[in-house]
């Protein structure tokens, strides 16, 4: 089950850019592709924890600013041959507003793992 949160308007995120949503379990990077599709990933690269929200967005991918890992926005998977995965979150758009789905159980578990 997801708790849905309204996080803002599409216009507030630049095309091919990203904004951060702060949550109790850590930052979530919300991306807007050139085709106005919106995606959300945990703002930590699975490689060395780089902030994905600061990366260059291209197609439906983002390049981490620290060591150029490339991740799929749709599922957080690193593009081969790199291996790793950033948690992804569901996103909905309704009337120009963006809604972010946070699964409390999963994200708490993820947060616990990452702080451990």
């Amino acid at each position, binding site marked *: 089950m997801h708790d849905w949160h309204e996080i803002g308007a599409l216009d507030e995120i630049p095309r091919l850019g990203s904004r951060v*949503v702060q949550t109790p379990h850590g930052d979530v990077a919300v991306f807007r592709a050139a085709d106005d599709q919106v995606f959300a990933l945990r703002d930590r690269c699975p490689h060395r924890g780089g902030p994905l929200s600061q990366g260059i967005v291209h197609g439906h991918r983002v390049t981490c600013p620290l060591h150029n890992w490339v991740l799929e926005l749709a599922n957080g998977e690193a593009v081969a041959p790199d291996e790793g995965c950033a948690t992804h979150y569901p996103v909905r758009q309704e009337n120009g507003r963006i809604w972010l789905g946070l699964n409390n159980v999963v994200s708490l578990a993820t947060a616990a793992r990452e702080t451990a």
Partner: protein
Amino acid sequence: MREKLVLVGNGMAGMRTLEELLTIAPDKYEITVFGAEPYGNYNRILLSPVLAGEKTVDQIMINDLDWYAERGITLHAGKEVVTINRARRQVIAADDTMAPYDRLLLATGSQPFMIPIPGNDLSGVITFRDIQDVHAMLDAARAGKKHAVVIGGGLLGLEAANGLMKQGMEVTVVHLLDVLMERQLDIEAAAMLRASLEERGLRFLMGAQTVAILGEERVKGVRFKDGLEIAADLVVMAVGIRPNTDLAKQSGIHCERGIVVNDTMQTYDPRVYAVGECVQHRGQTYGLVAPLWEQARVCANHLASYGISLYRGSVTSTKLKVTGIDLFSAGNFSGGSDCDEIVLRDQARGVYKKLVIKDNRVQGAVMYGDTIDGNWYFQLLRENTDVSGFRDSILFGQAHLGDAGHGGNNVLAMADEAEICGCNGVCKGAIVKAITTQKLFTLEEVRAHTKASASCGSCTGLVEQLLTAMLGDYSKTSKEKPLCPCTEYSHDHVRKTIREQHLTSLRAVFDFLEWKTPDGCHSCRPALNFYLIATWPGEARDDGQSRFINERVHANIQKDGTYSVVPRMWGGLTNPKELRAIADVADKFQIPTVKVTGGQRIDLLGVKKEDLPKVWADLNAAGMVSGHAYGKSLRTVKTCVGSDWCRFGTQDSTGLGVKLEKMTWGSWTPHKFKMAVSGCPRNCAEATIKDFGVVCVDSGYELHVGGNGGIKLRGTELLCKVATEEEAMEYAGAFMQLYREEGRYLERTAPWLERVGLAYVKQHLVEDGEGRKALHQRFLDSQQYAQVDPWAERASGRVDAHEFQPLRQVG
């Protein structure tokens, strides 16, 4: 339904094309492969080591039968295609196996040439082409046959002779000419090679024309034109290869010496493509492996319907695969009246190197005994590099260029645990393992899989050596490398198009040059953004989303996601007011580290992103602006105190440094750009390792260009000497502008200068006064759009506010 692709020929060229195709369009075709040999696909150029007993057949397999099955490819091994019905679009094998096609790929390779003389069909007369031939030779050796005669003293013949000798046979090499490997070697190198092979036990008959092979059923001997006869239990013909065109010819596809293809590897039948040794492209046929690789890449691109890649022919290089003999040859090694030759000959050490040079550019190379620098010379040749700057030491090799990295190491002699890539901690063993188990062929693949040479790149040469040693030279032979995988076009071509077509936006570039990706990638977007704003200042819009994060938020990202802030200190000067403001900012925002930089400024490290605008506002209030320590741009102008204070100072070096920095700050360049001004030849400001350095002397100012510290230390070269500060400023602006207009993105002035040559820069700046003034003026014109303090804009909250605030807080 998927389209049907049929490949005829299970050799290296055809399979490489399939592998490339599967990478870019894995699901486009249902694929069927016909191979005349009853095996999977193997590395034919490694047959010589198999014959010599240094490798086994299993070790040279590229794809075993499982590989085909896993990819859903139907393999008909051991079935020879005899007919192509182009009207019905079917191929038919000798056993009547039929396969329909939508696209057909011919990779039928070549066959060895048999000299048309009596007896050439006797048992024991073979060629050296496939695994069967190798088995025949090994069988003869094991059966205790004594005498082998190899006809042909070329690359293949010598490798066959060496292998047979290692298997215990007495081998005579017969060659029609007086020079061995005459297509690759000059007389000197060929003589050294012959002496060395004779020492190992090979015998040579030079200038000998074979007229008959003697024997009843099995070969017994060979007769020459002068009447001489020698005994032979085995005769290997290695006098050349001929493209296999029979199948294509029968089917009515246009052939000359080979199957004629255009620059997209398409034959005269648009449904039929051809690659490899069977092909004739722009009048050339190729028997080496590197060109096949390029053809495969181009062909796959068109089979995948991308339609944007062209093959323009190849320059090739050769190595002899005989253990213990190092030999390298490339390009035009025989020279001509308009060429110079640089030669090193050391008979005792068995070393010979010759470079053929024309207009300071390498045309060809022949090396014997010491070939470590072969790849480097080949690279200089392909890239048409001006070598005037290091011509006097070029024969001593790349290590003599002052490479502070790993130049000159022999990677083969290194232990498996030896670290090759210092940035990412990758040792030799890991790279070797990745190349073999992951079946890697190119530098890019090794970088992607192991990260070796993927960071600073200083170990690239070592990784390339490893690849070459393990696989043969598969490096790209084209002169122009694509800008990134999103395009086939090079940096220079893209930039020329931006200028000539007056393109002023990324979208226009993507559309006009038919980019393969919808909006580029992290490599090409920053490059294109730079080319656009450098070519059309004030007109092209700077696209923040196409800049690396540091240039987008005007601070340096650190490993923990915080930022560092470096305010500008003109010419390295500061004062109590600025220092107090820096101290206050560090206290107020609890900045954990304050450090003096190498460029005579102060770095505030560990600033939180949301604090950046407030930090900048406080620094702005004390009169400080961005130091651009994060940018591919003018960084600092380092100075010494000069004639104001120093008892040795000859000019006001600090004052000139401040003027230079005021003129050039804010300008974007292909890579970072550093300057320095020293007040006397003691050079305390280290001006001779900067991109542009001024060394003051009593009579004026020496201007030095193209130096850098960093990965590969390089001292500057002296551009010229001028009398006044005004001239020094004009040269600085003109030099920066020439570099901005012609340097490739992420190419510093040092490699740029090595590429174009100091003479070229002198010609534009020193010899052409009008040209220099025009360059300087263009620099100044563009500065009116660049000299806006990015910190003040953002501290005001009017620019890019979204960068510094979270979108929302939830929960």
